[in-house]
Every structure is written in structure tokens, then in C-alpha cells.
């Protein structure tokens, strides 16, 4: 077995390589690239919410609102030609983080039930602002006509985000970046303090953890990353619409994280694959499928709270412990 440090690094590198090699077989299938790019766009706010929900134990029911802040800031800057892609999306990310901090300061001191409700209300308020501030956000019709980033010359190749392969590679790069950030945060001392806060706030506080500062920091970071995802999404779709950041999407994001597996690194991505790529593959989920899906959610809530990734991990653990039990006895 490889030493504990290198195993995750190796699998991470393999995963990233696989991600970048996807266009090789699928270059001639723009629809597949479209579905996967959209999945990556959703995986980013999912990872952001996972940091809050899975690792710190804070349930935020309005998180797509922050994605919307990032999205609209990016959209307005790019559509009116005020800035190019990189500064626009950076501005979007910072704006979302700032709004997150602003919301977090008064709201994070509320305990669980109230925190959930207030995040729901904030999410709805942000949506209503996107929907009604016509002069800024285009109102209910949104902002169509957002340009794609200009082609990037890497020396050995040119990446053109105006084509399906190019925008996919851009999305994959942002995804890998966010994944690395997620990994670094979770494995750091800061991340361990968050886990302590999730398990027992009072205990963590008594051990010297500044609970409020930790919560505020992760809330702002999580909002910023959600904003990054939002900015990427509107550049990909070339249009910003308020429905992408409303109540249904807030709920969708929570489901992506929880069903995929909250508190795990890959859970949100698995959830995004399930909730975004699969419906595209099956084409619009019809009412009957949604009933089955609802039933699956209820079953999940009752029997599998760690989500699908959790189920898979538990199954893997069980297999390994069976093997080692057999090995110890000598024979079955």
C-alpha cells in the first residue's frame, strides 16, 4: 500500500488527468461536452455549500443567491465590455464573498432552525432583487448576449472558449482549482476546527476555537466560491437569468450536496453529475420520474443520511473489513 500522504495525491492527479482527457474521445459530441460543462458549473457551488453544510454543519438554504451575485456582477461587466473575463469573474467572486460576509455577520449567531430560515429568506430576497431590478439585472428576462472569453494561446495549443472543447477545459480548470482549495481547507487546522464546530460548538469553544470567526470566514469563502461558480455558469450559457438563482435552484443545490454525500470531497461532484448530467441524458425529467425521485429522497433521508458517496464508502469499508476478517481467521 502506498503511504497515506501520496494515495490521495495520486488519485487526485489521476482524476484531474481524466477530466482533461475527456475532450479527446468526445470532441465530436458537443452535446456531451455541453452536459459535462454544465455539471462542472454546478459542482462548484456544490463544493462551496459542502464546506458549510458537510464540514461545518451549517445548512444554508439560499446559497444560489450568492452564486447569483457572482453571476450578475460577472455578466454586467462582461456584457458591457467593461472588463475581460479574468477580472470580471474575479470581481464576481469577491462581490459574492463580500455579500456573504455582510450576511454572515448578523446571521451566523442564530442557532440552527433560525439560521436555516434566515438563509432561506436571504436567498429569496436576492432572487427578488435579481428579478425586479430591471435597470441593472435585466429583470425577469435576464441578461442575454454575454460574450465568451477570448482564446488563450498556450504555446503548444490554443484554447478557444467560444467552442465547446475550449469552454469545457476552462470549466474543468476552475473545477480543479476549487477542488484543490476544498481539499486544502478540509485538511488544514482550520478545517479540523470546523469539524469540531460541527460536532459540538460548545466543546469547540471551550477548547479555544473562536467559533464565530471560523464560521464567518468559511461562510464568506463559501459564498465567494459559489459566486465563482455562478460567474462561470453565466459565461458558459452566455446568458444570466434570475430563475437560475431562485428557490428551486437553492433546493436543488442542497439536494446535490446531501444526496451526493455531504462531508465528503467527491460527494458534491457526484451529486452534480446525478442532478445535472443525468436529466440531460434522460432529457427533461417528467412528472413520473420526479415522483420516484422524491420517494428516493425520502428513503435517503430515513436510511442513508450520508448520501450516495457515504453509502459507497460504507460499502467499501464493509468489503475491506470482511476481507481483513477473513484474512485474520485464515480461511472463511
Amino acid at each position: 500500500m502506498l503511504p497515506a500522504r501520496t494515495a490521495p495525491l495520486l488519485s487526485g492527479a489521476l482524476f484531474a488527468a481524466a477530466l482533461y482527457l475527456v475532450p479527446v474521445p468526445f470532441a465530436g459530441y458537443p452535446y456531451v461536452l455541453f452536459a459535462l460543462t454544465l455539471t462542472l458549473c454546478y459542482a462548484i457551488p456544490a463544493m462551496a455549500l459542502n464546506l458549510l453544510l458537510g464540514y461545518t454543519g451549517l445548512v444554508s438554504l439560499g446559497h444560489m443567491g450568492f452564486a447569483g451575485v457572482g453571476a450578475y456582477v460577472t455578466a454586467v461587466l462582461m456584457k458591457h465590455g467593461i472588463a475581460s473575463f479574468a477580472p470580471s469573474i474575479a470581481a464576481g467572486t469577491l462581490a459574492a464573498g463580500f455579500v456573504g460576509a455582510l450576511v454572515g455577520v448578523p446571521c451566523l449567531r442564530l442557532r440552527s432552525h433560525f439560521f436555516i430560515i434566515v438563509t432561506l429568506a436571504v436567498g429569496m430576497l436576492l432572487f427578488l432583487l435579481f428579478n425586479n431590478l430591471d435597470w441593472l439585472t435585466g429583470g425577469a428576462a435576464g441578461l442575454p448576449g454575454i460574450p465568451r472569453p477570448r482564446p488563450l494561446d498556450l504555446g503548444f495549443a490554443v484554447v478557444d472558449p467560444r467552442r465547446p472543447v475550449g469552454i469545457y477545459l476552462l470549466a474543468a480548470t476552475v473545477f480543479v482549482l476549487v477542488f484543490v482549495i476544498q481539499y486544502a481547507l478540509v485538511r488544514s487546522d482550520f478545517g479540523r476546527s470546523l469539524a469540531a464546530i460541527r460536532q459540538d460548538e460548545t466543546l469547540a469553544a471551550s477548547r479555544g476555537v473562536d467559533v464565530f470567526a471560523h464560521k464567518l470566514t468559511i461562510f464568506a469563502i463559501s459564498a465567494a466560491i459559489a459566486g465563482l461558480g455562478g460567474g462561470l455558469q453565466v459565461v458558459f450559457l452566455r446568458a444570466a437569468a434570475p430563475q437560475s438563482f431562485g428557490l428551486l435552484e437553492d433546493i436543488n443545490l442542497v439536494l446535490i450536496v446531501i444526496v451526493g454525500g455531504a462531508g465528503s470531497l467527491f460527494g458534491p461532484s457526484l451529486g452534480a453529475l446525478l442532478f445535472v448530467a443525468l436529466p440531460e441524458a434522460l432529457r427533461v425529467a417528467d412528472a413520473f420520474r420526479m415522483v420516484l425521485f422524491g420517494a428516493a429522497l425520502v428513503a435517503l433521508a430515513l436510511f442513508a443520511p450520508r448520501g450516495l458517496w457515504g453509502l459507497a464508502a460504507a460499502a467499501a469499508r464493509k468489503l475491506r473489513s470482511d476481507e481483513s476478517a477473513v484474512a485474520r481467521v485464515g480461511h472463511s
Partner: protein
Amino acid sequence: MPASGIRFAVTALLEQIVNGMMMGAIYVLVALGMVLIFGVMEVLNFAHGVLFMAGGYLCDVFVVHATGSYPLAVVLTMVTLAIVGMALERTVFRRLRVNLPMQIVASLGLILIAENGAVLLFGPSALQLSVPSVRSLVRVGELSFTVQHFIIVGATVVSIGALHVFLHHTRFGTALRATSQNAEAARVIGIDSASIYRITFAVACALAGLGGALLGPLFLISPQMGDLPLLKGLTAIVLGGMASIPGAIVGGFAIGIVEAVSTLFIATEYRDMVVFTVLIAILLMRPWGLFSVRVRGDA
């Protein structure tokens, strides 16, 4: 302001107060159910909106296919929803009492099942149910309202009275109040919490069903008809105090009237924003609500 201007303004205010009382009554019915469930079981039932919606559809089915009598259909709807509530409590919510995130996931699952189930059974277009109390009008000066407006307020007042009698003058109601105050202690003195939870859900869901059955004929019966009442009801119980019944009543009527009157001053499309801003303000300033007492750990 010219005299006619003042007359217009007063008439408008009166009209909106009546409309606000009507919608407020609906919010009260939703809020009462949610506050009962939360107070007794500490469960935040996000699926309450679809129970409201089910009330609307069931009432339509009972009127059109069973009895033709609207009042009888309403009663049947309440009974059916009480049974559904007990089933939900037993199968889903009892296990999730301490797990808030999973309550949300389960509620969302139920919402998907119910809303899509409604589409499968009744089609995606909304239903129109025409009943005599909606077709008849009442004139009040130059204003005019349907009889249903007053029936809604009346039915809510009757429900509040009935609930009060139940909670304060019956053994079961007293047991319920005891459980909501301190579940452990209630069990110690021999109160069977399982049946308390069952009855709580039954009453709460019956009230939600009543709301849907009352509002449905006035507007439309659609799969999404419970979404906004859920959010407004949630706001009402936060405003009033999450385990306080008087709070839910005051909160519901207050929200109804405030949002109706606000449309006289600000654009109608901002009406929902008013409610959410109120919600956020309450949570930030006095999260335990107007009628509850601050408990340690509340913030």
C-alpha cells in the same frame, strides 16, 4: 389632498384591510399547523405547503365526483388530510425528530412526490372549482367582495376557537401542551408521546387541508398553490414565536394585512420582498418572536 383623494385613499385602505384579513386567515391556518408540529415535536415541516395543496385538490375531487356539496367536501377533506398526516408522522417524521437537515431532505422529497403526483393525476393546468360562495357577492359601500372572503375569515376564527377548546379543556389537549413544554417530563407522568405526535400531525394537517379547500375555489387549484402560503406561514410563526399559538395567529393576520396594505405604497411585484425583509428583520432582532420568552441558546 383634495377630499375625493382622501376618500379614494380611505376606500383603498379599507379594501386592502379586508383582503389582508382574508389572506391572513389562510396564513393563520398554515401557521397553526406548523407551530403545533414544531412546538410538540421540534420538527420543521417544510412539506406543509403541499398538504395545503392536497386539501385544494381533494376538495375539488369531493365536490365534483362525490358529493356536490361544498361544505361536506371541506369536512371530508379535513378528515382525509388528518389521516394522511398521521401516516406521514408514523412513517417519515417520527424518525427524523432530532435531525434537521434530514427533515429538510425528506420534506423536499415529499414536495416532489406531491407536486408531481398532482401533475400526473390532474394534469399541469390549474383546476377551477366554482362554488356558490365564490359566485355570490357582498356589497360594502362601493366595495364588493365574494362571500368566500368572509367564509374564510369565519372558518379560521371557528378553527381557532375549536383548537383553544381542544387544547385547554380536554385531557388530550392538556397532554399535548404538556408534551410541548417538556417531552421528558410528560413521558414520566405517563403521557404516551407516540399518540400525542400522531394527533398533533392529524390536527395540523387537517388545518392545512382546510386552508387549501377554502382558498382553492377563490383562485385556482394548482400544484404550486401551497408554495407561497408555506413561506408566509413560516414567516408568521417566526414573527409570533415558533412554539406560540397566539403568536401564530397574530403573526398570520399581521403578515396578511401588512403585505396587502404595503401594495398601496410600493409596487406590487415587491410585495413578497416586504414579507422576506420582515422575516429577516425579526430573525436578526428578536428571533424568539413576539410572543415567546427568550430561552438560553436561542441567540
